[in-house]
C-alpha cells in the first residue's frame, strides 16, 4: 500500500454540479477543472489536506451522481467507490456529501442513500447564496436533526464556511447515522417511496420555499438563450465568434513565437560549427518541436473560450438546443460537448463522452470525434489552401470560405458515419432518453479558468518536449542516415532511409496524386499531423528562415514549381483537393488512438477506428483525385 492509500480517505460525493470540485480545490489547494454543468468531473481525483488538529487526510473527489444506481460510466465510478467495490480505493472513512441548498429536494435522495451505506457522513450545504436569492428559508440545525448527521452551510466558490467544514472533519469521526426512514424487509420500491416521503417532510421543516418562484436574472437570460429562434441565433453567433476569435487573436502571439523560434535557430547556428549535431539541433529539435509549439496560442484561446462557456452554464443550453439536430444522426445533445471539445483536441473530447449514459451512443461519439477538425490540422490547411487558390496566405474571403468548408466537410461526414454506425450497432437494450439539468448562470471563475488553461498549455508544451521531440529526432535521423557522398540534397535524401522509404511507398500515394516525398511527409505526420508542414519543408529542401510565414511562402512556391518526371505539374487542383481530403479524414494522432483504447477498453476498437479512418481518407482522396484529374 502506498503512502497516499495509507492515509484516511474522505470521499467527496454529491449530485453533478453541486460544487464538489470547487470545494475539493478550496480544501486541497489543487486546481482540478470546474465548470457549471453536470459532468465536469468524469474521473475520481485525490488530494490531501490537514484537519484543524494537524492530521493529514486524503480527499477523493468523485464524479457526480444522482443516485448510487446511476447508469453512466462516471456515475458508476462514484457508486462503486462508496459501496467499497472499487479495488483501487479503500472504503472511505467518511463521506463529505455536497448538496445544492437551492435544490435540496433533489439532492437529498443521494444523501439518504449514502447515509444508508453506514459510512459516517457530513453534509456540506453548498450554494446558500443561491438558495437565499430564491427566498428559501434554510434551517441547517433542523436538517441535521432530521438526517442524523452534521450539516455545514457553505459557499464553496467564495470560501465561506470552509473553516467549519474542516472542523467537522476532525477526529474522532462521527458514528454512522441512525436510519429512521426505512425499515428492514422493505422492497426497493418501498424504500424509494419512503425516501421520497422523508425528503418531503424534511424539506418542509428545513428548507421552506416561498409560495411563488422568483424570476431570477438566469431565467431572463434563458428567455433569450433558449428561445426557439433567438436561442439558435445566439448559439450560431457564439460559435462563429469563438472560431473567428481563435484565428484572429492567435495571429499576434503566433508571430512572436515564430520570431523567437527563428531567432533561436539563428543564434544556435552562429554558435555551432556545421555538422550532424548542428543539423540535429536546428532541424530536428528546434525546427521539429517549434513547428508544433507555434500553435500553442490557438490551443490556449480555444480552451479559454470553452472554459468560459462551461463556467457560465451556457454549455448545457447549447447541448439542449443541439439535441434536435443530433438526434437525426442517432446521437443526443449530450454528445455535443465532446464533439465541440474535439475541435480543440480530440483527447479531452473523447474523455468527455463519459457523461453519455448509452454505451452505444458513447462508442459512436468516440468513433467520430477525431473527424472534428482539431487545431493540429490548421497548419496543414494554412499551407495548402492558398496554394489551391494560387494566392498569398492572407485573409481573403475565398480562403476563409474553403477553411470553413473543410470544417463543415469533416463534421458532416462525422454525422453521416455516426448515423450509419448507430444503425449498425442497433438500439439500446433500454432506451436512454434525454434529460439534462440546466444550471443557473454564474459569473465565470476566472482564477480556475486561467489555471486550467495554464495546465492545458503546459501539458501541450510537455507533449511537444517529449513525444513530438522524440519523433522529430527520429525523423531527422531517418532523413540523414545512411549518409551519401553527394553534395546534391536531393541525392542525399534519396540515399537516406527516408528516401528509400519514400520510394517504397510511392505506389500507395501515386493514385491519390502524390509522389513518394509527399507520401513520406504524410507518413511522418501519422505521429502528429502538424509535422507534415516541417516534413514537406525538409523533403523539398526549403531553407528555414526567421519567419514561418515566409517559410510557408517559399515552400508553396517550391511546390507550385514541382513537376512529375514527365514535366507535368505535381501540385494541381486535383492533387491538392485530394491532399486536403486526406488530412480531413485520416486519424493521424497516436495519443488519440491510445485514449480511445483506454476509454473503450478495447485496442480492437481503437485499431479498427485507425484503420477505418485511414482507409476512408485514402479512398476519399483517391475518388476526389480521379474525378477531378
Amino acid at each position, binding site marked *: 500500500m502506498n503512502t497516499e492509500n495509507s492515509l484516511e480517505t474522505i470521499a467527496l460525493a454529491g449530485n453533478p454540479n453541486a460544487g464538489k470540485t470547487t470545494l475539493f480545490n478550496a480544501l486541497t489547494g489543487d486546481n482540478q477543472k470546474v465548470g457549471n454543468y453536470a459532468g465536469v468531473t468524469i474521473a475520481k481525483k485525490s488530494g490531501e489536506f490537514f484537519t484543524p488538529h494537524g492530521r493529514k487526510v486524503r480527499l477523493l473527489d468523485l464524479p457526480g451522481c444522482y*443516485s448510487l444506481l446511476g447508469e453512466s460510466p462516471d456515475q458508476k465510478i462514484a457508486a462503486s467507490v462508496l459501496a467499497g467495490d472499487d479495488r483501487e480505493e479503500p472504503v472511505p472513512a467518511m463521506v463529505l456529501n455536497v448538496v445544492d441548498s437551492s435544490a435540496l*429536494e433533489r439532492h437529498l*435522495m443521494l444523501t439518504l442513500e449514502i447515509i444508508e451505506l453506514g459510512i459516517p457522513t457530513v453534509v456540506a450545504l453548498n450554494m446558500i447564496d443561491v438558495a437565499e436569492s430564491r427566498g428559501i428559508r434554510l434551517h441547517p440545525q433542523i436538517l441535521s436533526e432530521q438526517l442524523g448527521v452534521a450539516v455545514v452551510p457553505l459557499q464553496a466558490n467564495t470560501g465561506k464556511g470552509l473553516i467549519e467544514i474542516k472542523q467537522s472533519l476532525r477526529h474522532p469521526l462521527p458514528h454512522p447515522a441512525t436510519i429512521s426512514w426505512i425499515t428492514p424487509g422493505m422492497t426497493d420500491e418501498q424504500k424509494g417511496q419512503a425516501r421520497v416521503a422523508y425528503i418531503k417532510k424534511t424539506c418542509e421543516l428545513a428548507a421552506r420555499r416561498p409560495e411563488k418562484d422568483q424570476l431570477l436574472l438566469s431565467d431572463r437570460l434563458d428567455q433569450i438563450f433558449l428561445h426557439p429562434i433567438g436561442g439558435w441565433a445566439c448559439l450560431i453567433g457564439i460559435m462563429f465568434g469563438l472560431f473567428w476569435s481563435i484565428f484572429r487573436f492567435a495571429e499576434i502571439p503566433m508571430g512572436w513565437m515564430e520570431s523567437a523560434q527563428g531567432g533561436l535557430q539563428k543564434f544556435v547556428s552562429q554558435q555551432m560549427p556545421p555538422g550532424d549535431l548542428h543539423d540535429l539541433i536546428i532541424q530536428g529539435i528546434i525546427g521539429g518541436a517549434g513547428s508544433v509549439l507555434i500553435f500553442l496560442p490557438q490551443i490556449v484561446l480555444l480552451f479559454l473560450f470553452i472554459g468560459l462557456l462551461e463556467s457560465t452554464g451556457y454549455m448545457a443550453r447549447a447541448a*439542449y438546443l443541439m*439535441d434536435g439536430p443530433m*438526434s437525426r444522426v442517432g446521437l443526443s445533445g449530450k454528445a455535443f460537448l465532446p464533439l465541440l471539445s474535439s475541435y480543440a483536441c480530440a483527447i479531452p473530447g473523447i474523455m468527455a463522452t463519459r457523461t453519455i449514459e448509452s454505451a452505444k451512443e458513447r462508442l459512436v461519439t468516440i468513433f467520430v470525434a477525431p473527424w472534428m477538425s482539431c487545431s493540429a490540422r490548421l497548419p496543414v490547411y494554412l499551407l495548402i489552401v492558398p496554394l489551391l487558390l494560387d494566392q498569398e496566405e492572407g485573409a481573403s474571403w475565398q480562403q476563409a470560405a474553403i477553411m470553413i468548408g473543410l470544417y463543415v466537410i469533416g463534421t458532416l461526414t462525422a454525422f453521416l458515419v455516426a448515423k450509419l454506425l448507430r444503425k449498425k450497432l442497433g438500439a439500446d437494450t433500454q432506451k436512454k432518453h*434525454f*434529460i439534462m439539468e440546466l444550471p443557473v448562470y454564474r459569473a465565470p471563475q476566472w482564477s480556475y479558468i486561467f489555471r486550467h488553461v495554464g495546465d492545458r498549455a503546459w501539458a501541450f508544451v510537455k507533449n511537444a518536449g517529449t513525444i513530438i521531440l522524440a519523433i522529430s529526432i527520429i525523423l531527422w535521423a531517418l532523413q540523414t542516415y545512411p549518409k551519401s557522398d553527394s553534395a546534391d540534397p536531393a541525392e542525399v535524401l534519396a540515399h537516406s532511409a527516408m528516401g528509400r522509404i519514400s520510394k517504397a511507398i510511392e505506389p500507395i500515394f501515386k493514385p491519390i496524386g502524390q509522389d513518394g516525398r509527399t507520401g513520406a511527409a504524410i507518413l511522418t505526420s501519422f505521429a502528429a499531423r502538424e509535422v507534415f508542414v516541417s516534413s514537406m519543408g525538409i523533403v523539398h529542401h526549403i531553407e528555414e528562415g526567421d519567419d514561418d510565414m515566409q517559410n510557408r511562402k517559399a515552400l508553396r512556391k517550391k511546390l507550385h514549381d514541382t513537376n512529375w518526371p514527365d514535366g507535368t505539374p505535381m501540385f494541381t487542383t486535383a492533387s491538392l483537393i485530394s491532399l486536403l481530403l486526406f488530412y480531413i479524414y485520416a486519424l493521424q494522432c497516436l495519443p488519440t488512438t491510445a485514449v480511445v483504447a483506454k476509454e473503450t477498453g478495447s485496442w480492437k476498437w481503437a485499431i479498427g477506428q485507425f484503420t477505418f479512418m485511414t482507409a476512408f481518407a485514402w479512398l476519399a482522396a483517391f475518388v476526389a483525385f480521379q474525378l477531378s484529374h
Partner: protein
Amino acid sequence: MPATQHLVKDLEQDSMISLEQAKVGCEFHIRFLSGSSCEQLRQMGFCETMRVKKISDGRNLICNVCGTKMAVSRELAHQIMGEATP
C-alpha cells in the same frame, strides 16, 4: 384492495394527464410515474408528490423541479403522470 378502492384509483388515474400534455406555465403535481424510465426520472428528482412547473414545450420540455431547470424529452415527460393547476 377492495373493488371500490380499485375503481376510485382507476378514476383518479383517468383524470390525470402527463407532463407532456400539461400546458406551459402550469404547476404540475406528480402523482405517479408509469413507464420504463421511472427509476431514471426519480434519480433526477421527478418523484411522486413533487411539484414541477412547466416552462416550455418542444422536442424537449423545460420544467422547474425544486428550483432546478431540467430539460426532459417528450417520451420521458409522457411517463410523468399527475394533475395540472393553472
